[in-house]
Structure formats: structure tokens, C-alpha cells
């Protein structure tokens, strides 16, 4: 049995751990706290926006990508250091199909084009793999946007006004007086999702909607129609006889929590040992072979040895990349060589809206995602770097973060499985 350690439990870490465990590896997933999925939108982005020729950063002229597979070759040609250029379209395509098959209850099979899903502000956001509750019917002409007085992260009238422009519909906002639970005047979407998991709440909601709104082709509700399952959404649709779309809110994100819960359960069901709550603070290795990592556990530091490693620690947001008081950028665990530092622009400039050069800093890897030094030599041959640590992508303006996470994790896991197969067991 090959021992593999995955560091990080965001989308990339969970995907890598599941694929490795399903391929027969004995996987330990080490994570300091939960990964970022509960903070995300709960759909899977591949490529949402491209910039007009000559512009490397977002502008008002940015184009929402309708067909990401058609746009990808041009995008790769224009971004030679980008993770997508390293991985190639075939791998990216296979990885997203694999993910959709992993989560049949939560993600619709892709029809190859981007969906436009509504944000809480009424922007229509391009994304590739959506949950069943996010499918916007193109023939909807009139929309009822419904919120709750006790859910202060969602303003139906604001969203409705914006939808008239962004989605070309007539839209009206409604505010229902329906607490998630007795007497609570300020609840999160999660508390509403917990309530909606009980059929009596859905019945009360249906009755209140029927009594309140004018007829519409489509109802938009904040994303709260079930955490345990999507049955509350299905039941509300059938009771009302109207299609319902969920709009995702600021965290806590119910659709993000659904994916996190589903992937974490899959990992555990695949035999992954999930070790949460301790930070990886060191490593040991010889030559180009990493031997293990040190986990800062309660009471003492504990060494975890393994044959192979996947590093999915995320970027600046999770502390895997840090900036010191001299403005120098570091990868904080393995001290891996970085790229994107040596440009003629300062890493951080004074223009808030510009694409700061620092966001393209990341770990230098070869095509197999093994870390390399500036000479192109492999630093650790049994380590793969995936997800937000990879350089040259501005994930939030490109809307490429999920696609990078899934495709790099898939490629790394596939490569590591191939290296050890057929393997000598024990």
C-alpha cells in the first residue's frame, strides 16, 4: 500500500485525496481548519471572463465567456505560464467530467457551456458546473425575487432591479416575515437551510409565497433550500408549480457547504484518514525525496511519513503564501521556489483596481506539477503542487479557481497513481 499525504482540504485537496484513495492509495488528509468550499459559490467555475486583447487585467470591457471550451485554446495561448497551459484541455475536460460523476446528487452533468447564475446582487455570473437549484430558464420573462425580513444578507428589491438589466426580465422583490426559528430576528442562510430541511417549514414558506406574490415565470430565493438534500427545493417547486432558482449569498454559503459536506463524506467513505485541526509546520527529506511532514498537534509535534505528497494549501488567503515585512513573498511550508516575482512592475502597486502582480506569484512546477527551482531541477520528485499555489492565474477575475483546483488535483493524483501502479503491496 502506498502512503500518500495530502495537505489542505479545499476543493483541490479533497479532490486529490478522493482520487488517490479510490485508486488504492492509503491517504491521510491533513488540514488546519476547514477548507474554503463553505465560503464559495457552490458551483464549479472553469473560465468565466476573458480580457480584451492588450489588457491583462479586468476592465469594463471584459467578456463573459459563453463557451469555455471554445475559449480555452485562445486563453492558453495568451497565458503561457497559466496552470491551464501546463495541464492542457484534455486533462481539464476529463477532470471536470470526473468531478460531476462523483457528485451526481449535487452537480448537473455539463452541457459544455457556461451557465449564468444569479448572485445576491443580481449579477449573472458565468460558471460551468451548477447545482440543480441554479439553472436559470432562458425563457423566463417575469421573476419574483423573495427574501426574508430576518435574513439580512439578501435584499430582494435591489436584486430585482439589477435583474431587469442583467437578465433582461421584469422582476419584483418581496420580503416575507418568516423567521428561520422562533423569535430570531437575524439569521444566516444556513439557519434557513436547517429550517428548510424540515418539511413543515417548506409548507409554511409555500403558503406564504402563494398568499403574497403575483404570478411569475420564475421565483428566485436566497440559496437556503436544503442542506441535507435538495428535497426542500424540489418540494417547493412542485407545490408552487413554478420554477425556483437559488441565488448565492455572502458566506456562510449553503451551496458551498453542500459540496464541502459531500466531498468530505466521499473522502472518508473512500478510506481517507482526515486529520483536522493541526498545522503542518515542517518536513524531512533526502536528495529529491520528501520523507514526511511534522504536524503541530496538541501536546507535541508528530511526524507523519509517506511515500508521496500532494500540497493543496491554497494561496495568500490561507497563509500558504505569505508576505514578510520586507515585501518578500514566501511559500510558508516547504519554502518552495516561486515564480512571478521578477517582473518590472512592483508586486503591489497603488491602484486598488489594477491586477496586482503579487496575485500571479506562485510555486514553480514542471508539467507533472512537481516543484522546480529556477534551473528547472526538481526540488521534491514525490511532491505535487496543486490548486491556488500554482502561479500566473488571477482566479477571481478569470473565474478559474475551481477549474484549476480540480484539474491540477486530478492530474497530480493520476500521475502519482500511474507511478505506483502496478504496486507492490506491503
Amino acid at each position: 500500500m502506498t502512503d500518500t499525504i495530502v495537505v489542505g482540504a479545499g476543493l483541490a485537496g479533497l479532490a486529490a485525496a478522493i482520487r488517490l484513495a479510490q485508486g488504492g492509495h492509503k491517504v491521510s488528509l491533513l488540514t488546519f481548519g476547514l477548507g474554503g468550499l463553505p465560503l464559495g459559490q457552490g458551483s464549479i467555475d472553469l473560465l468565466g471572463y476573458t480580457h480584451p486583447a492588450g489588457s491583462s487585467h479586468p476592465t469594463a470591457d471584459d467578456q463573459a465567456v459563453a463557451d469555455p471550451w471554445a475559449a480555452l485554446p485562445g486563453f492558453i495561448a495568451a497565458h503561457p505560464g497559466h496552470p491551464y497551459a501546463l495541464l492542457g484541455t484534455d486533462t481539464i475536460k476529463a477532470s471536470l467530467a470526473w468531478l460531476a460523476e462523483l457528485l451526481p446528487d449535487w452537480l448537473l452533468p455539463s452541457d459544455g457551456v457556461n451557465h449564468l447564475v444569479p448572485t445576491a446582487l443580481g449579477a449573472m455570473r458565468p460558471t460551468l458546473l451548477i447545482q440543480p437549484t441554479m439553472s436559470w430558464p432562458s425563457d423566463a420573462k417575469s421573476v419574483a425575487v423573495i427574501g426574508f425580513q430576518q435574513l439580512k444578507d439578501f435584499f430582494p428589491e435591489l436584486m430585482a432591479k439589477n435583474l431587469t438589466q442583467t437578465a433582461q426580465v421584469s422582476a419584483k422583490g418581496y420580503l416575507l416575515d418568516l423567521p428561520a426559528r422562533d423569535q430570531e430576528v437575524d439569521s444566516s442562510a444556513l439557519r434557513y437551510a436547517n429550517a428548510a430541511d424540515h418539511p413543515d417549514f417548506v409548507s409554511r414558506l409555500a403558503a406564504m409565497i402563494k398568499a403574497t406574490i403575483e404570478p411569475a415565470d420564475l421565483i428566485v430565493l436566497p440559496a437556503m433550500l436544503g442542506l441535507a438534500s435538495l428535497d426542500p427545493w424540489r418540494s417547493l417547486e412542485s407545490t408552487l408549480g413554478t420554477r425556483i432558482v437559488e441565488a448565492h449569498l455572502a458566506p456562510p454559503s449553503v451551496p458551498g457547504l453542500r459540496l464541502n459536506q459531500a466531498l468530505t463524506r466521499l473522502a472518508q467513505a473512500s478510506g481517507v484518514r482526515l486529520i483536522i485541526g493541526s498545522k503542518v509546520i515542517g518536513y524531512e527529506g533526502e536528495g529529491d525525496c520528501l520523507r514526511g511532514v511534522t504536524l503541530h498537534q496538541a501536546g507535541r509535534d508528530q511526524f507523519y511519513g509517506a511515500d508521496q505528497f500532494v500540497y493543496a494549501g491554497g494561496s495568500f488567503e490561507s497563509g500558504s503564501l505569505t508576505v514578510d515585512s520586507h515585501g518578500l513573498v514566501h511559500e510558508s511550508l516547504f519554502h518552495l521556489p516561486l515564480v512571478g516575482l521578477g517582473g518590472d512592475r512592483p508586486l503591489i502597486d497603488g491602484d486598488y483596481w489594477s491586477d496586482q502582480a503579487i496575485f500571479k506569484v506562485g510555486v514553480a512546477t514542471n508539467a507533472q506539477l512537481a516543484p522546480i527551482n529556477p534551473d528547472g531541477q526538481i526540488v521534491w520528485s514525490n511532491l505535487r503542487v496543486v490548486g491556488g499555489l500554482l502561479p500566473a492565474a488571477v482566479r477571481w477575475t478569470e473565474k478559474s479557481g475551481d477549474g484549476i483546483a480540480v484539474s491540477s488535483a486530478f492530474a497530480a493524483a493520476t500521475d502519482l497513481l500511474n507511478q505506483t501502479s502496478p504496486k507492490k503491496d506491503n
Partner: protein
Amino acid sequence: MFEAASYESNLLARASLDSCVKCTICETQCPVMAVTPLFSGPKYVGPQAERYRSGLTVDHSLDYCSSCGTCSLVCPQGVEIAELNSVARAAMKKGHTPLRDQLVSRTSLLGQMMKPVAPLANAVLANRPSRWLIEKTIGIHRNAAMPTAQRHSFSDWWRHHRPSKAPTRGKVVYFHGCAGQYFEVETSIKTVEVLEFIGYEVVCPDQGCCGLPLQSNGLFDTARKYVRRLAEQLNVEVEVPIIASASSCVTMLKHEAHDIMGVDDPTVLQAGQRIREVSEFLLSLADAGTLPGDLAPIHQTVAYHAPCQLKGQGMGKPALALLSLIPQLTVIDAEATCCGIAGTYGVKKEKYAIGQAVGRELFEAVERINPQLAVCDTETCRWQIAAATGATVVHPISLLHQAWGLDQD
């Protein structure tokens, strides 16, 4: 010497509050906030309220925090939320801790009092009118799970115990905890028998309480004395590991004495480095290939619940991997955050209903998976699950004891 009420005793935890990015992950996992609006949640009560505390109490909903520690465990930014809240609650309650909290946090005392009159004590605790009276006078909920008093303590057994075979591996120090001394005697005995069966010489010094229930009830001064005394008592055979079947008490020694109560005695820290929860220890042997493999099959499917205090040690759920070594045994992780007892929280009359609501999903999982038998590492959680479901709830060591054929001895 630190004062219990002084928030300065927690400067390190306070320093971590600036790392809070308000991401709400702690709120999504808090088991108390999920079932009651009475607790405003770890983010508000923790890093947000802490900014306004200068030894003062700014949010009394803090009392509804169960100290399960889930918030600290799931925080991706390293904010010591539960630690901050435990210190703040101790400050809030200092000087007016109810008699009830003083009583339920002294497990050893209860055990000592109940042992000589075990049948009577058990009858009183099983009697509805007397439980009603206890609820009205002391404030322990009439339906709360209570331990079963035993006529013989673990020490009574240990005094006459002779190992059945000569050691082949060296020594370990055994820490049984107070529940293991007076109430869960069988678990303690089985742990010793398993350790001896796999070749260890077990050393068991006289030992007292770790102070965890006192700490969670805000009685820091006494808790500090207890944990220091325990560390001294366990400070024998200093080169060998301390093995414990009381998984929550392990947490006290590993980090809570230091991280919540500011105890930095070298003896306590050293005991914290040496101590291993027994499943953690056995799994490390299994991973190293030095655990006997001749486990007999157990044809059962059981739910497993990892106690909060065990998860708080940041080592995953060792019992899950360990029990997977027993042929034919299917262990299903109930995936519950908390059973709702949280030490002594769930026995208090004003919190009993919250504790039951917190544990509901776990109880349903036990009833669904196997209503006769479930597995959990901590004593108070086992009592809670057993009382709610009627299932027999055992420590993981019981199943290993059985699979190694030691039950017949």
C-alpha cells in the same frame, strides 16, 4: 500566579483574534448555535466580543457555549475561539458559581461518596421523585444521564491484579481518570489487559482528577491545582508513554491546562507530551506493523462517535482506523459534531434541552445503525448516548479486547 478572572492569562489566545477574517466557518459548525438562538455563536462571542472585554462581560449568551471546542478545530486562520470563550466565561462566573456546578465538576468526590453505597446511590438516581427533588434543589435535570456507581473501583482490582504473561515490549504508565476509577471500571481493566496482552508492562501510580470538569465550569484555581498534582503523580517512569482511556482528560493534559488556564509548569507540559489516548497509541503501533494481527471477527455493524475533546487533539479519529483492523466489524462514523453532554453542560436543568437537541442527529444515527451497541471514547458522552438511545455504548478498547479473545479470561 494567574488569577482566574484575569483575561491577561490568555494573552496568546487574545493575540489570535486579529487573525479572524469573519469567514463564518466556525458558525457553520457550532453545534449549539445550530439548535438554539440563545447562543449568539462563536464568532460574536469569541473574537468580536473579546475586543470589548477588559475583564468585563459584554455578552452573557457566552454561558450557553458548551466548550466543545469545535470552533477552534475548524477555524482555518488559527483563532483560538474556544480558548478565549472559556477564559471569558470563567471571568463572568467568578465568585458566583452555583453549588450545582461545584458539585458536578468533582467526579472523584462523587465517585468516592457513591462507591460505599453504590446500590442505594444507583436506586436514588433511578428514582423519579428523588430526581425531581434533585432538579428542584440543585439544578441537575431529572432526565440527565448519570453514571452508574460501582461497588469496586479500578484501584480495588489493580491492587490484586497480576499480569497473565511476562512483558515483551517495555513499560507504559496507565492513566485511568476519575470516571475510569469509579464508574467505567470495566473500560480501565480492559485497557490494562489489552496493553499487557500486546506485551507491555503497565505501571499505574495512584492518581487524582485532571481538573477538566472544574475548568469547564470556570473553577480555574482548583482545576490548576488538580492538573499539577496529577502531572506529579504521573511523573514516574519518565521515559515511557502515558496511556489513557479517558480521552477527554487527555486533552486537558495535552493542551487545555496550558492554552486555557495558562499552566506552564514543566511537569504538566511534559505529561502532555508523553500522554497518548489508547486508540492513538495502538494505531501508531499498527501503522508501524507491531500490533498483533490475530483479531477474531466481530459480526457487527456499529456507529462510532468521536468526542469533541478527542477531535480537539488535532489527530483525526484514530479509533476509526484502528477498529477497521477487526475482521467483519463495520464501524460507521456517525459524523456528529457533539453528543450534547459536553462534560457537565447537558446535565444542567437550563441546558438539558439544548444538549438533547445537539445530540439528536447522533442519537438517530445510533438508532439507525445499531440500536444495541455503539462506540465512543469518552465516558460522559457514552452515558449521554446510552441514556438517549438505550444502546450499550462502549470504548473502542472493548471491541479490541473482545477480538483478541480476552473477554473469556
